[in-house]
């Protein structure tokens, strides 16, 4: 079937099978390979994107379901001139990533969190990240980066 959607502000069209997942459409058809696949049970969150402003694991949605939707992926997070968003910059400043594989999903999730809750507590950040698995960082610097991006003071334990 044919579909049309707006991805990172740009209108795209494609032809997919009914069973094609949104993540496969993004990665294979649009070559937007920043969105990753880390599992097949919608647990890891590496494929997290925004669809019509909502946080979505793009492995749990058929591409066809996003027909006509506005989709935002990690490739659209920075400014046109390459300037990182405040969240992206905080991840670099606070070493919130290592291998980088879960990172796009983390950044998209963090953006959604701060939109809903601009000054989250540490507990709220950790709860919100429940659907995103990172195997490298132990989450310490991810939580720290998100809190920093929200403009809050660090808890004493996060100082290191």
């Amino acid at each position, binding site marked *: 079937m044919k579909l049309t959607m707006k991805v990172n502000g740009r209108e795209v069209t494609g032809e997919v099978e009914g069973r094609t997942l949104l993540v496969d459409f993004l990665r294979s058809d649009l070559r937007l390979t920043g969105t990753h696949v880390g599992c097949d049970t919608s647990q890891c969150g590496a494929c997290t994107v925004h669809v019509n402003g909502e946080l979505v694991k793009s492995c749990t949605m058929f591409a066809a379901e996003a027909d006509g939707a506005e989709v935002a992926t990690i490739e659209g997070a920075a400014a046109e001139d390459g300037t990182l968003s405040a969240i992206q910059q905080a991840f670099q400043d606070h070493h919130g990533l290592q291998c980088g594989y879960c990172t796009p999903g983390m950044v998209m999730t963090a953006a959604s969190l701060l939109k809903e809750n601009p000054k989250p507590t540490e507990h709220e950040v950790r709860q919100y990240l429940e659907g995103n698995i990172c*195997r490298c960082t132990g989450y310490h610097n991810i939580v720290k980066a998100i809190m920093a991006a929200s403009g809050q003071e660090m808890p004493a334990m996060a100082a290191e």
Partner: protein
Amino acid sequence: MPKDSGIGASSKRREDIRFLTGTGKYTDDINIHGQLYVHFLRADVAHAKLNGVDTAEAAAMPGVVRIFTGADFEAVGSIPCGWQITDRHGQPMQEPRHPVLAHGKIRHVGEPVAAVVAETRAQARDAAEAIVLDYDELPAVVDMKAAVAEGATKVHDELTSNLCYDWGFVEENKAATDAAFAAAAHVTTLELVNNRLVANPMEPRVAVGEYDRADDMHTLHTTSQNPHVIRLLMGAFVLGIPEHKLRVVAPDVGGGFGTKIFHYQEEAFCTFAAKALNRPVKWTSTRSEAFMSDAHGRDHVSKIQLALDADNNFTAIRTETYANMGAYLSTFAPSVPTWLHGTLMAGNYKTPLVYVNVKAVFTNTVPVDAYRGAGRPEATYQLERVIDMAARELGVDPVALRRQNYITQFPYATPVAVEYDTGDYNATMDKLTEIADFAGFEARRKESEARGKLRGLGVNSYIEACGIAPSNLVGQLGARAGLYDAATVRVNATGSISVMVGAHSHGQGHETSFPQVISEMIGIPEDQIDIVHGDTSKIPFGMGTYGSRSLAVCGSAMVRAAEKVINKAKRIAAHLLEASEGDIELKDGTFSVAGTDKSVAWGDVTLAAYVPHNYPLTDIEPGLEETAFYDPANFTYPAGAYACEVELDPETGHVKIERFSAADDFGNVINPMIVSGQVHGGIAQGIGQALLENCAYDADGQLISASYMDYAMPRADDLPFYSVDHSCQTPCTHNPLGVKGCGEAGAIGSPPSVVNAVIDAIQSGGMNVAHIDMPLTPHRVWAAMHAARTDAA
């Protein structure tokens, strides 16, 4: 004042930009024109006689190009094992053939039996469902002790039994160790399980094979920690491809943790099939496949005994371990429970006698190999649990008991074949006491108790052997290859530098930290230096990244190559400055003549090397590029002290980590920010092992924890902020940077303190629970408390 560049600076990671903007290049992001996709049909039973594979219907399905079975690989070599262990009786280990695709027999759930190559991934998957396997199921061998019992079903018919080896270390110490136990004032005995884990890097494995018929060139793009190792193993032992006709590329790799060291069948398959079909062949693992095909970790069942004299000095340690090898020997598997485990059994303590016995066992399970720490977490866990138990039995403070027995004089030759070059275990324990706020613990415990909760504090020390490895030594121990590393420092004409390194970065941040070293040595900005890694066609050689070796071994090679470059540049500078070479000094990117104001900039010297208009051509070859190989003289020995503080709900058995503190001695530190990050990640994996993760098989050999729905990965809300410190530094004495390695410490050092803390919490509630096996799930903890309450009643 913290530095802002060079050695010791927390330079921000340059690789972050591509990862944060979605422009990293991972193996699955590689798509080659005309590529085909392979789907592996994997065994769904653990053990069976495979009579036939009927592919007729599947082969006729849309898009199918070819279906391969085990018969297609009869002329192909076995997936090789890189280590050979010699047993207690001087005999080599039993080493079975490891086929690319199962042939004649299925030996574990997940073993690839057939491979469907098709035009699309979906077509390959659809066709695989139409393949019919004809097999007769055999009893599955799952439990290790049952596997080596008389009359057990054999995993490999051609072997004499399921025992891979029975290893004694040091065998000559056995009689004396037994005598020390007979004479001991106190003996503590603990039986424990080091639970089977799955490494679970977030990027599943991927392989893309490519073949260029015109020049007979094979290329494999793969998710590897060590592309040269794959080239060597696959080229020389499996497919018979000479190294100059085989390029292995490991681009951005999404985490490894050990499981991407090994050479896997899927890599050999894609390389083989690309040539057979003359088209690129791509395989992308699903997470479900990863659970049943990535080598697993740990899985030891051990009994450890600690002998003490009347003054609580440790006099001897004796252990017996059953180590699961799984169905086949993975690349490093035999070395993990032996040379990476037995050699660390002395720990941080001056115990004069140690005897380690390890029985490695074949079972109908996924192969088991190195996972972050590899053998050293298993040693540390046994030792640090038995010491805690001994302290409890003797009624002494567990920290004081450790301090009393610490090694304090260096170098120290242990009774298990290694020599610690340097360390200060009291210093890290002192630092831990401070950062973990031991002094405030009793008040925190009272506060918890006031809320009906129990609070426990667990402490342990650890030591590891890193910087793997001195080639001569490991060769004597059974390694079939040297474990040195290499680097090339290529200075460009205008002074910028590309460094080609054998280490592979898949999260460790080498692209940032390695240039810090070169910047410090030459005095030019870090951004003038780039690191090239992960491609056998671009780098001279390298054994890759594992065993916390990158900086200690490959970094040392890089320093040696840079020293050669500097020495040559000084000779060129001497010519340009018309001075004697011995008078030339290099500082802040400028060569000067000692005691004069004559100087020449780094860039002018490098330009002269490439544009030799004014150049001593008869004395010095033009150009400025040097390669060095570095073979370490010894292992490095990072060590430290860890503390975990838990709050336990006595009603439910739920354990919450309230505080976790780590004081490490990594020797000199290049980038403190990156080092802290490595420790954080290791701690999370250690806490995961202690509380959450468990790779479980049922009695039929079915893997029952094969997804993130069943295998509990640590998540953000399971973990606290950690307090980590690496200010205690006793530099390594035998490598040029004085570095020890930091990648595995967190995973090695953390499980015992978590378990020690939970036992402490339970005991504080008046329940006599001496031990609970990991993972300490609420159910296990509750059951142990319930049994203790029932016993007491």
